[in-house]
């Protein structure tokens, strides 16, 4: 059984971006090596190179001293390397057993034998799964389990986990960490990629920190702590808190929602009699467990979904039944949760993405034509102002890291100083630096008198930046709490309908 994976001197460029710069790393059987770093630090690229999904420009990938550099994943697999992807590589319409058998070298397959092996492996590692279940019908956490079992089915001795906990709940995460601990005791080599440091400290034997494509720190887990790792991850960055530290100067109402009733979409929650007010210079947080109406509320407030009854006034103007363009014209900005699909157009350039908010402005038009030069100058200013790290604004937005994509969205949404900002999961999946930058932007908008509505599944975030927290439960307002009186326990009780 394979036991040691070593990467030496890996270098990889994507165009002008140096994703990996002379990176070396080794993981041995019976140990967990954690790879940490912020979004865009080059962790995933490195792992894809290890598994053969990318070919490195330089460097070697060795499994027990055998080079498999630049070979396809099936070679890595046959050498005992298994990978659990961030976005699973399972065929959704196929059964668990069929997925296990994918890529088998022999033409004819013994399904009964395969089913027996799936059962045996799932029992051995205490990860129950029905071999005949269709993968697409399984919950995400079970799909991940199928990927892990598939690695064992292929007799993997080396397991690579690419941000495995990003799709899991807290409870599921603990469960996974316990399993990984068992794999280690079973003699497997585990490479664990994450940017959640408590998990890393809980499970790793050794930690490697990457920043901007390079290894900047390596330590045994008992020789380091979270603060140490954060310092290396973000470099010279000094952490400070934003948000409620900015004194709230609440003025007139920026966003008034009264008696809002919204029909349930095909799969979703109806809103019933929702009322809330965001004053200018105030941050209101929406706290709710997923599926309690926060998505529907944002859609109704931004013109994406029709409103059945009630009224919405933004900056003193009735916008209840206006479409998206009407809301925008009324000074309502929206930073959506699903950045990749709703926030940006991945195929278009950074310029095009930002220009979406410029081209209607008479300043950038001359008759039927657009003043492209003026637009380009404005976009360039914004790229600098929002520290968007790109070689040029002509780069497709999809090529940027998550943090830079959110900066593009922020630049576009906030460029005309909107009176109302609706931000969903503003820092979800962002690295510390990008998150801090965003908090800073929201804080300065607040100072200038915007009313900000933040929807977040991260209560700590809400407690940190919001002045008032509105809790939604089953499509109704379960309570409104001033931030200084809010605690995680109190909000938690309201969110689960216990209070």
């Amino acid at each position, binding site marked *: 059984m394979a036991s040691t994976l070593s990467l030496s001197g890996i270098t990889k460029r994507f165009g002008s971006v140096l994703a990996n710069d002379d990176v070396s790393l080794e993981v041995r059987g019976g140990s967990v090596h954690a790879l940490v770093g912020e979004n865009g630090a080059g962790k995933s690229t490195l792992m894809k190179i290890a598994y053969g999904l990318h070919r490195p420009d330089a460097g070697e990938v060795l499994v027990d001293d055998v080079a498999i550099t630049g070979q396809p994943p099936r070679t890595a697999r046959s050498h005992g390397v298994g990978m659990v992807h961030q976005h699973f590589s399972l065929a959704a319409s196929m059964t668990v057993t069929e997925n296990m058998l994918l*890529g088998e070298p022999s033409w004819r397959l013994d399904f009964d034998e395969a089913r027996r092996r799936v059962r045996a492996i799932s029992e051995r590692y205490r990860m129950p799964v029905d071999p005949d279940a269709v993968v697409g019908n399984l919950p995400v956490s079970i799909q991940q389990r199928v990927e892990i079992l598939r690695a064992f089915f292929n007799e993997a001795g080396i397991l690579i986990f690419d941000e495995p906990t990003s799709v899991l709940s807290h409870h599921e995460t603990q469960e996974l960490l316990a399993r990984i601990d068992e794999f280690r005791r079973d003699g497997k080599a585990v490479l664990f990629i994450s940017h959640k440091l408590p998990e890393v400290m809980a499970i790793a034997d050794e930690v490697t920190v990457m920043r901007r494509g390079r290894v900047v720190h390596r330590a045994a887990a008992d020789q380091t702590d979270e603060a140490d790792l954060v310092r290396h991850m973000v470099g010279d960055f000094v952490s400070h808190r934003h948000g409620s530290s900015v004194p709230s100067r609440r003025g007139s109402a920026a966003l008034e929602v009264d008696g809002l009733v919204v029909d349930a979409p095909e799969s979703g929650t109806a809103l019933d009699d929702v009322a809330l007010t965001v004053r200018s210079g105030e941050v209101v947080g929406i706290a709710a467990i997923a599926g309690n109406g926060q998505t529907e509320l944002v859609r109704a407030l931004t013109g994406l979904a029709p409103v059945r009854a009630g009224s919405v006034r933004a900056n003193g103007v009735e916008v209840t039944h206006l479409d998206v363009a009407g809301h925008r014209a009324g000074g309502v900005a929206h930073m959506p949760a699903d950045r990749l699909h709703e926030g940006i157009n991945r195929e278009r350039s950074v310029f095009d993405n930002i220009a979406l908010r410029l081209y209607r402005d008479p300043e950038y038009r001359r008759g039927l034509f657009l003043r492209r030069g003026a637009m380009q100058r404005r976009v360039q200013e914004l790229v600098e102002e929002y520290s968007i790290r790109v070689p040029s604004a002509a780069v497709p937005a999809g090529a940027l890291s998550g943090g830079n994509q959110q900066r593009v969205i922020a630049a576009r949404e906030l460029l005309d100083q909107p009176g109302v900002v609706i931000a969903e999961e503003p820092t979800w999946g962002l690295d510390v630096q990008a998150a801090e930058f965003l908090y800073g932007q929201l804080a300065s908008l607040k100072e200038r008198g915007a009313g900000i509505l933040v929807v977040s599944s991260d209560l700590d975030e809400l407690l940190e930046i919001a002045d008032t927290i509105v809790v939604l439960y089953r499509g109704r307002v379960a309570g409104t709490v001033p931030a200084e009186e809010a605690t995680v326990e109190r909000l938690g009780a309201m969110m689960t309908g216990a209070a």
Partner: protein
Amino acid sequence: MSGPVSALVVQVTSSAEFAQSTMSFAAPLLFAALGALVSQRVGVFNVGIEGFMTAGAFFAAAATYYTGSPWLGLLAAIVAGALLGLVMAFCVFALGGDEVVVGLGISTACSGLAAYLLLVVFDREKALISPKIHTLPKVDLPVVRDIPVLGGIVNGHSVLAYVSLACVAVVAYVLRRTSFGLGVRCIGESPEAAASAGVRVERTRYLVFVLSGVLAAVGGAQVSIGYLRLFQEGMTAGQGFIALSASVAGAAVPVLVLAAVLVFAAARAVAVVLVTSSVPPQFVQMVPYAMAIAAIVLIALVRRARQRRRSFALRATRPEDQRPPSHVAPGVTAPSAE
């Protein structure tokens, strides 16, 4: 109005002649539909099928003309289909051409090539008709032929008609039970996932296209040397496209595609029988194509209804929103997926 028409339909569809011709029409369509099915399973809507059929029909007739053996004619069709499949795979996968544009190009090129060769090699216009072209043998099943009614319908077809039915079973088996088939299905869903799972994506795609070309070309051979003994320009008459529709209508599931093919073949048989009736011939000729469209619309409606039900069911078993995941703070119990 509906009285006489339905009476006519009943009279037509109950005749043995109708069942006989349905079976005859089904064979070429079935081969071509299986060809479309396998490409659909690697995620390609293969408009080249019509071209593969034309080439199969032409080369089968031409090779039979020269060699006197319809079996060598069939072999020529197979070789031509395999080569065309490779060419199309190369254009789509290696050169990154748009699959529909490449497919249409191949179809147009094949009918042009057949017409050109007809003129240059055989010095004929429009058609190659010769006593030197023989048909493939018909099968006489010993016991079956004595069964009343059914015997007349099932017995006495060209050998390829029976092979086409066997191919449905073979394709179904390969897709469900072999590692090649699993790879094909996974590629159709996500080529990246397949590569990551260790499937040889490129090789599988090329093999599938060779298979697709061979199946459709054999269907074409059945058109020229199955029952008839001639090649004529445009003789496949859009059957490749009907086969494509059958594959889509049957959701690329072999048994369902067989059912769709039988429906379309029956429509053609109706047209043939109706030619002798008082119904205007233009209308009659339209029937198979109109039925193809009607079948696809119907199936799309059914599928949409089913999908809606399924998404509700999924929602019920999946309490957590898919994105973004809830990082629920300590002290809050989120509904767990387990």
